[in-house]
């Protein structure tokens, strides 16, 4: 290339590059201004991603309908990924102050959100005027999103864990699909029979990586009647007989019976991939695990049923509950907060609308009839309405969840600073699941020390 040409090409490329980058920049900076032309604008995240076609369509329809009903409000949706709260990205948005006006978070995120100084106290706005069903919302859920008597988020989803099992594999193994295991001993026996089917089938499958191991350890511990932290939240409280039992059960199944399959160090998607391929007999999970198996992992609905979480010698003494809510960014105008509340009320907390629009969901490939999200207090008006609608429009065999629903297990929330604690407990889980000679006492002792140290550093 001769020099002038070289120069021209470089200059052109540079101009093109700068031009492109400028346009790329300008597309993203459309937040900020709140009340242009008498309208209140709010940005909301956790819009479904493009691959969830029907969910996205539903969301967009809801926005249109909501804006029609509230002509003074403009809702701008932002999609933050298929998992609305992926911890590193969430941390990034909090630290960078790029969260939307109304932003999604887990119940366990409250401490981190407060630390970042991004959350607004919304106590005075949470009332019937803004959210008509507010008084029906389970008070326990409101409590989780409160700190020092102040409310910081509106709960929009709530779940509790049970035993999810594959009916096809149960039948093949000669087990009764209508009387699933009620104790961990029964789980162990069933797992042995299912894994005897061979072909790489795991009777029972469990997580041990990516913080999901700790998450499930917590649930298993609750089933024993244990707790992760002491009531004052200052010390670890799992290095005891109940914690040992949890790990012993797993170790017995993994190495005593070899009924948990060879693949370990699983995290969320890994287990569900195997489940979708029909290689998992039982695992513990929330009702929406079956939804993920179908919509994301190529599995079938009719194969799956759910029972309450087993206990050691009888029914479980407790199960893990968790959920999600929407926080409000600090510095919003009262009008914006009210608009955000109204949107959440419409899309998340109104029977027959938004996430409760079962008539719309019925023909779509999303289950209606799952016993969740359990947002409303039992016996409240909204709860009854929602239940009737759900029954009338169910597209999955509700019998699959009948046992789970008929036998409620006391629900316990996640511990304070859950994600950090889960990371620690992953090591205990991976220990018993990958090392035939693991020392349960040592594993728990290490984890205890680590959690105590973590808690000490927090205060």
């Amino acid at each position: 290339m001769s020099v002038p040409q070289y120069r021209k090409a470089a200059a052109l490329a540079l101009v093109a590059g700068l031009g492109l980058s400028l346009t790329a920049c300008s597309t993203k900076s459309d937040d900020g201004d709140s009340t242009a032309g008498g309208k209140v604008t709010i940005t909301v995240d956790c819009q479904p991603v493009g691959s969830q076609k029907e969910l996205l369509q539903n969301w967009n329809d809801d926005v249109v309908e909501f804006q029609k009903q509230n002509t003074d409000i403009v809702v701008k949706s932002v999609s933050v990924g298929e998992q609305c709260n992926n911890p590193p990205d969430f941390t990034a948005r909090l630290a960078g102050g790029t969260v939307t006006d109304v932003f999604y978070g887990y119940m366990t995120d409250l401490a981190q959100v407060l630390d970042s100084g991004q959350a607004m106290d919304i106590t005075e706005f949470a009332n019937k005027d803004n959210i008509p069903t507010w008084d029906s919302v389970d008070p326990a859920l409101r409590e989780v999103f409160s700190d020092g008597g102040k409310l910081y988020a509106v709960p929009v989803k709530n779940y509790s864990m049970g035993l999810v099992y594959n009916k096809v594999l149960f039948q093949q193994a000669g087990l009764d699909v209508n009387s699933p295991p009620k104790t961990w001993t029964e789980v162990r026996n069933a797992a042995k029979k299912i894994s005897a089917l061979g072909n790489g089938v795991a009777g029972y499958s469990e997580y041990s990586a990516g913080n999901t191991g700790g998450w499930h350890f917590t649930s298993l511990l609750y089933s024993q009647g244990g707790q992760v932290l002491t009531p004052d939240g200052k010390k670890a409280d799992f290095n005891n007989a109940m914690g040992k039992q949890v790990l012993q059960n797993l170790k017995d199944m993994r190495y005593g019976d070899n009924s948990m399959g060879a693949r370990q160090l699983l995290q969320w998607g890994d287990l569900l991939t195997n489940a979708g391929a029909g290689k998992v007999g039982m695992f513990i999970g929330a009702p929406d695990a079956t939804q993920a198996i179908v919509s994301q992992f190529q599995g079938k609905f009719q194969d799956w049923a759910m029972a309450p979480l087993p206990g050691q010698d009888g029914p479980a003494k407790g199960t893990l509950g968790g959920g999600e809510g929407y926080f409000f960014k600090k510095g919003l105008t009262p009008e914006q907060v009210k608009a955000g509340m109204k949107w959440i009320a419409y899309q998340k907390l109104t029977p027959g609308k938004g996430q409760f629009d079962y008539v719309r969901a019925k023909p779509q490939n999303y289950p209606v009839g799952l016993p969740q999200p359990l947002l409303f207090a039992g016996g409240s008006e909204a709860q009854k309405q929602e239940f009737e609608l759900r029954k009338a429009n169910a597209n999955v065999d509700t019998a699959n969840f009948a046992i789970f629903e008929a036998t409620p297990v006391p629900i316990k929330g996640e511990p304070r600073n859950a994600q950090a604690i889960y990371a620690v407990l992953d090591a205990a889980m991976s220990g018993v699941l990958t090392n035939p000679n693991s020392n349960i006492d040592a594993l728990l002792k290490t984890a205890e020390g680590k959690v105590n140290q973590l808690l000490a550093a927090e205060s």
Partner: protein
Amino acid sequence: MAQDSGTRTLISQAQLRRGRGRILYWTLLAVVVVVFTLVFLGPLYWMVTGALKSGQEIAQTPPSLFPKDPRPQNYVDAWNNLDLAKLLFNTFYYATGAVLFQLVFDAAAAYSLSKLRPIFGNLILGLMLATLMIPAMVLIVPQYVTVIDLPIVHINLLDSPFAIWLPLVANAFNIFLLKRFFDSIPEELMSAALMDGATPLRTLWSIILPMSRPILGVVAILAMTAVWKDFLWPKLVMPSPETRTVSVGIYAFAGGTPMNVVIAASVIAAIPTVIIFLIFQRNIMSGLTAGSVKG
């Protein structure tokens, strides 16, 4: 490459043409070709066919060599669900920008340090080279905090391509490579140009840069590869799904996607780079050669 066919290497040509040497040469060549094909092409074959298998077939023992019931749908799902077109576009966009920024700023800096040698030039070069010893991981947290809120101007660069382009300019290795190359350009050329009244910019454009095309090529390749290979930094500074790179996007989706679809996405993601490489293979190879001749 053609130029080396005649040069003498470790073992003399003559030795390889004679009797035992010849047999040994051909046997070794055959073994190496077979082994390398298995080691480097084998996994890729496994990848392409594995992505065609169903979830059940992947989990079976022993694994099947050919997919029994090929599911091209996995590739379609991968393309659509991961929005690969967008991810690939982002990656190439960031890579192109990174190349341009590095060529412009680093070449200018190297030129200044090599030929103009302003006061404190050596000190600045020293400070730059010192960063060679600082792994990116050490700086990841403060760098991230900086990008979120740039000092003085208080701009947030998250989700902006500049968050990838500008930190890459701070690349001491490139400046070092360029400076060394510029050093080797005879000073007389410079002074002759200056005598003719050419400005330093003019000298850079019309004398230095045209002579430095090989090294500019190397810097471009290195810049491209750096963006292509980087993972944690783009993962942190591009938190939105629309701004992700391929590698980060595939990772983000892997958690909630069946593995055969993840693998299918990987295959598709690799195709454009492989094609680019095959087309520019000669330039890349000779670029790397030229770069180290002087290095």
